[in-house]
């Protein structure tokens, strides 16, 4: 009999296991997405794509700190016009759901890019309303519930694919924002994007990143992300995708217990390679078996009993 312990139905997407490649990591081409799937990912999210090409910021775009990475890539992407080719190619070669990450500078732009991505074959859209370092998009939209609601509604009206919303932790109450997104039709919420951060070099006294500010990822933000997922789970009914500092199965379990139905992994690929998806999945499976759970869904939100 087929073992269904790890299968997840995520807002209509059927995942063989609940690990997903986070947006912004690799994800330019079908071939790199394929190599991530070979590492065991249950689904993949592309790099964020917008209406027009963007070159991103000058280097340094990534700086390592003691407990994570700060990046300010600046959303480099070839624009949806060019990217539809990669989406079509990815759909041919991938045997897991393909989620296209979308950003825009207005609700119309979000909708236009989403529609083109959906028409090219994206299985779902993930709205990047949480990039902490690009003006007039990302978290500048995700920090304002009224604007976010308009974006979600406009995209929902434009496409008939599931729409995920990736939330920023750089807000007073992430649960309020989550509620606004869910009320206007978000099918799932991804929590969280990177935390706004910076690093300064003592010798030169200069901010290191070309953009000065960036987003912190990696294990430093895991406790913040777990708390965000926990808060959101108390307020909304739509599925939550946990993201932030997941590097092994214990991290993943923590997110499920807080209320996540799936998890995204990004930064850990630098240290563990794409096989991190397989090792997390195996560890998770062993944990569920040992604890007597028949499906990962049974542990979602368990810690809320206390």
């Amino acid at each position: 009999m087929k073992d269904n312990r790890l299968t997840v139905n995520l807002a209509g997407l059927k995942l063989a296991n609940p690990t997903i490649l986070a947006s912004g990591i690799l994800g330019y081409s079908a071939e790199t997405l394929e190599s991530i799937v070979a590492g065991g990912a249950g689904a993949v999210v592309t790099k964020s794509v917008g209406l027009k090409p963007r070159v991103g910021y000058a280097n340094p775009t990534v700086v390592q700190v003691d407990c994570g990475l700060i990046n300010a890539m600046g959303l480099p992407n070839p624009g949806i016009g060019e990217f539809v080719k990669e989406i079509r190619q990815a759909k041919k070669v991938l045997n897991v759901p393909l989620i296209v990450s979308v950003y825009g500078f207005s609700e119309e732009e979000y909708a236009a890019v989403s529609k083109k991505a959906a028409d090219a074959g994206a299985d779902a859209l993930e709205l990047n309303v949480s990039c902490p370092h690009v003006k007039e998009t990302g978290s500048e939209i995700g920090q304002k519930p009224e604007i976010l609601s308009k974006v979600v509604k406009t995209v929902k009206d434009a496409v008939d694919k599931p729409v995920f919303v990736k939330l920023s932790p750089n807000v007073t109450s992430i649960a309020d924002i989550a509620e606004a997104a869910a009320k206007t039709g978000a099918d799932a919420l991804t929590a969280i994007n990177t935390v706004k951060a910076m690093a300064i070099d003592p010798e030169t006294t200069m901010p290191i990143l070309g953009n000065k500010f960036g987003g912190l990822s990696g294990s430093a933000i895991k406790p913040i992300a777990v708390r965000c997922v926990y808060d959101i789970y108390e307020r909304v009914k739509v599925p939550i995708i946990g993201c932030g500092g997941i590097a092994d199965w214990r991290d993943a379990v923590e997110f499920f217990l807080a209320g996540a139905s799936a998890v995204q992994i990004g930064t850990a690929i630098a240290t563990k390679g794409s096989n991190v998806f397989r090792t997390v999945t195996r560890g998770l499976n062993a944990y569920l078996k040992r604890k007597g759970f028949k499906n990962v869904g049974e542990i979602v939100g368990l810690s809320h009993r206390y």
Partner: protein
Amino acid sequence: MVRLLGYHIATNKLRTTQIQSIKTETQTVKTFAFKDKLCAKAKPGQFLMLWIPGVDEIPFSILDAREDGSVAVAVRKVGEATSALHNKRIGEIIGIRGPFGNGFTAKKGKVLMVAGGTGVFPLLFLSRKIKPKATRLVFIIGAKTREELFFIDEIERFCGKENVVASTEDGSYGVKCLASESLELLLCKEKFDMIYTCGPELMMRKVLDLAEKHGIALEASLERLMRCAIGLCGSCVIGKYRVCRDGPIFSAQQLIKVKTEFGKFKRDFDGRKISF
């Protein structure tokens, strides 16, 4: 098992260091030396990210790394960042990450280096390491003009003039032809065990085709847009490979798998494929 707290790649941490010496090699090339314990352990073919504070951070193949902790990179003035570096003086601060990437594998036997332009830099480092083991070492070096045959005097001294085939496109030094044409002539006369190549990708593509034709093993050093240098951002991908993590040195077997891209396309700052 100890679980590492946090996220850490030792070589990826940015270190600041002072420029110790600057040597003018040609009108457009200077060699910068500085102390860095981690990069001093680099293997030939590995690269580092050099931060020019307030300007940019760019990748350089390592020209030399010594046990006393000193590291050298040769820098050709081609744009804003390299010009800013050329204007620096001894004692000024730069930032270093690395060494990154895999490096060449040192083979014994009859070895051939094929360098084009600035591609000579990592191959010079490799030559110093493998010369004691090689039964024969021949250096083919090509450039547009005599002025761009970087380190030619040093290579001729080091390998012996009879083991150096220099070619220039304008005929101002050596043979008037492309380095790949010199290679083709040589391979018709003599058998080698290994070819190491670095230079313009169109040249390396021809070298790969010749190596395949003559059944000779090959390693090539690739250059792509580098941002993170740790395999996350995707700026440097060629086919299924990340040049920063899976390379920058690739074998003929690997390059054959990405033949539709190698020597054909690279990615621009916005991730679009652009042809060479």
